């Protein structure tokens, strides 16, 4: 399939924005795997990353700030035939939507969750985010950020995510590999993408990341959780970022546990046997 069929509106991101790489990698993966646009749903949040759904010619749901995961989870449960991709930013995921993130990792819905992490609030023009480094000067922290940054990858690992990866927008091929693997993973696939903001983050630039990235040696990640956590933690301590597929494990998915079968709910009749309703009432006789 041609990538062009997935092309939506012309992106309004700044030239050089890391989010282009995510968009391009996604389109490549869709085309390579010949996924019909009608079977894809991009669920995005608020922020520059949230616009992604408008830039693809697939189904898209642009949700409220922080609410990508509850919506994406519900969509997947409603119709397991769909490929559901959550696209959100660092504010969306690690600030306003943090609890949904942790609980989605625990729940293991079959969705791919991509966080375009640029360590700054771009759409509101330059305030710090939960992933901004300590001391980062932003419009809301003129004297520097005083909080410790959040590492989404560590959070995901500790919270029970069954697929954890970190990508870098300077490496589209790397993103394609990760996304493709995520597409075949049965469960919650979490990908934190280091996606530089070229306008409001002059600290964490492409060059800055290139100096600090360590690529995973295992192409398909580590299978032993404590080891994965240790690797990520050690890199983090040294101020470096481990990229690639970090961890993958097989576990029953949310759909496996709560859906009777894979027939989409939307295709089932809503009418039920009246007798069954009467039986429910009969409990109260």
């Amino acid at each position: 399939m041609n990538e062009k069929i997935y092309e939506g509106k012309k992106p309004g991101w700044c030239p050089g924005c890391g989010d282009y790489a995510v968009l391009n990698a996604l389109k490549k993966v869709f085309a390579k795997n010949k996924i019909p646009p009608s079977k894809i749903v991009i669920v995005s949040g608020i922020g520059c990353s949230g616009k992604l759904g408008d830039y693809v010619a697939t189904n898209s749901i642009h949700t409220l700030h922080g609410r990508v995961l509850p919506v994406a989870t519900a969509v997947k449960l409603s119709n397991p035939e769909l490929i559901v991709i959550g696209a959100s930013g660092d504010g969306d995921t690690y600030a306003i939507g943090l609890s949904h993130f942790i609980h989605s990792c625990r729940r293991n819905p079959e969705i791919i969750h991509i966080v375009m992490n640029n360590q700054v609030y771009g759409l509101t023009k330059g305030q710090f985010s939960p992933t901004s480094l300590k001391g980062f000067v932003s419009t809301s922290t003129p004297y520097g950020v005083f909080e410790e940054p959040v590492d989404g990858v560590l959070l995901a690992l500790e919270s029970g995510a069954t697929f954890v990866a970190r990508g870098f927008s300077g490496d589209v091929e790397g993103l394609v590999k990760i996304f493709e693997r995520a597409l075949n993973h049965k469960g919650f696939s979490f990908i934190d993408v280091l996606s530089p903001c070229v306008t409001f983050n002059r600290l964490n630039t492409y060059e800055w990341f290139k100096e600090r990235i360590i690529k995973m040696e295992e192409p398909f990640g580590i299978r032993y959780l404590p080891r994965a956590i240790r690797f990520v933690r050690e890199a983090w301590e040294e101020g470096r970022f481990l990229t690639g597929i970090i961890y993958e494990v097989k576990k029953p998915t949310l759909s496996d546990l709560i859906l009777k079968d894979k027939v989409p709910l939307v295709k089932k009749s809503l009418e039920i046997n009246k007798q069954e309703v009467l039986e429910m009432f009969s409990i109260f006789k």
Partner: protein
Amino acid sequence: MFEISLRIGGEAGDGALTAGNIIAKIFSRYGLYVSTYKDFPSQIRGIHTNYTIRASSLKRFSRPSKIDFLFAFDEKSIIFHQHEIKENGILIAEEKILGDTKLRKDLKIFKIPFLQITLKEFKKEIYKNSILLGVFSCFVEIDEENFINLLEETYGRKGKEVLEKNLLAFKIGRNFVNENFKDIEKIKFPEKKENDNILISGNEICAISAIYSGCRFFSGYPITPATEILEFLSKFMPKFGGVILQVEDEIAAINAAVGAGIAGIRAMTATSGPGFSLMTEGISYASMTETPVVIVDSQRAGPSTGMPTKFEQSDLFHAVFGGHGDFPRCVLAPSHPEEIFEFTNLSFNIAEKYQIPVILLLDQFLSQNLFTIKIPEIEKFKIERGEFLQEPQREYKRFSFNENGISKRTYLGMDETIFHITGVEHDEEGHITTYAPLRKKMNEKRFLKIENLKREMPEEIVLGDGENIIVTWGSTRLAVEEIIDDFKNLKIVIVRGIYPLRENLKEILKGKKIICVEQNLQGQFSFLIEKLIKREVIKILKYSGRPFHPEELKEKIGRALYE
């Protein structure tokens, strides 16, 4: 007319609920109309609680003004409730608690050493409720068998030993009365009426109706007094292939329900005040994205955490006006347990036909109390899904303009068909726009639906045809309808479609005095009515957390009419 009411008071943990439920069921099976009134604290143990059971040969479901029996396990029961016993009524009290409390002279008092008996027979304070049942059975002309059957039903599944001990406790209670009190005048009951009635709470009716009405996705977070909807659906939804999720908070609950709504599933969530507040942004999103979703708000006393287990009707402003921006919605409020099935069904139909969020306002009284009802005639209630795309469409416009504001929906995943949903202002295809003329048109399109919806809102119930009008809503109706025969020249109007109000209501509310009875401090419904009829109404309000009983209402209405 036959009527009997009793109250069991004690500390939380004394078993008032179990004993009360057994008595309620005995009465209900007997052919009487039963309603209960739970006055429970938001605490599991060690605080005063009381449970009232009312049974009547007529369909009377309000909290009774006076009671025939009071069972007192603690002193507070006597202090708080003895004045509510009818003249020459019966007080059955734990012997130990009758210390310095002055007792009414007219009462027939029976002292029972519940505690002493339990310690002697069972070595600990346990099975008091079954002793109580044994005692009570001596005061009513109902076969002992009825009690025993229900004890067996209630405790049978808890194992042989538990059942036997409870049956023994029942016998002990019975024997104690027979041995110690002579010449008890048993209350005569009308003849037993074989029936198929059920004794059920509003929350359970709502949950069953949701399943019947095609709801296949429910996400929620436990909150009093709405939790039973989540619990019931957790048990039964999987049987019907539906999805039930207890999520991390009410924000997740509403957003997940909206997500399912977008996917094309009938979805619902249920909550109460605090959770409803958290859902506000999600409801505005549902409306902006023209997504059907049903939100049950079982109102409790607010504001903030308020009184979680207490009754109030104070979420009306929030239901009708809550949220940022202008957006259409529908607010329905059943006024009677018998209406909950129908209104839950209607909520889903309106939500899908008009592609809007529907807020179904219940309240603590309707939600958590038990009522005797006939099993609803379910065949009368249909699933009406509204406008759907029938076949794939490549250039599909999810928000296409037309004369009634309702664009065709489809489900996510229809072959060759894609659509875009966004909470940002958008064009017909769902693409983001801020273009002024388009924004104006879209905003108006969404509200166009309200004009059409007005014609489909449920009609008011009108009782009587007097010139003085009492208008009310929600379960306040139950007390109001009981006073209709006490006044002349009265018309009672019960409004069930809260928003949008029907235009026709203006005509119905033409009269001499217009009195609005509701249970909140600001007169929230009165505000809507005054705006509609363009005149002031007399407000009768209550906001103590306890619903009106007919006697107090009678006095207030009398004053409003004649002062």
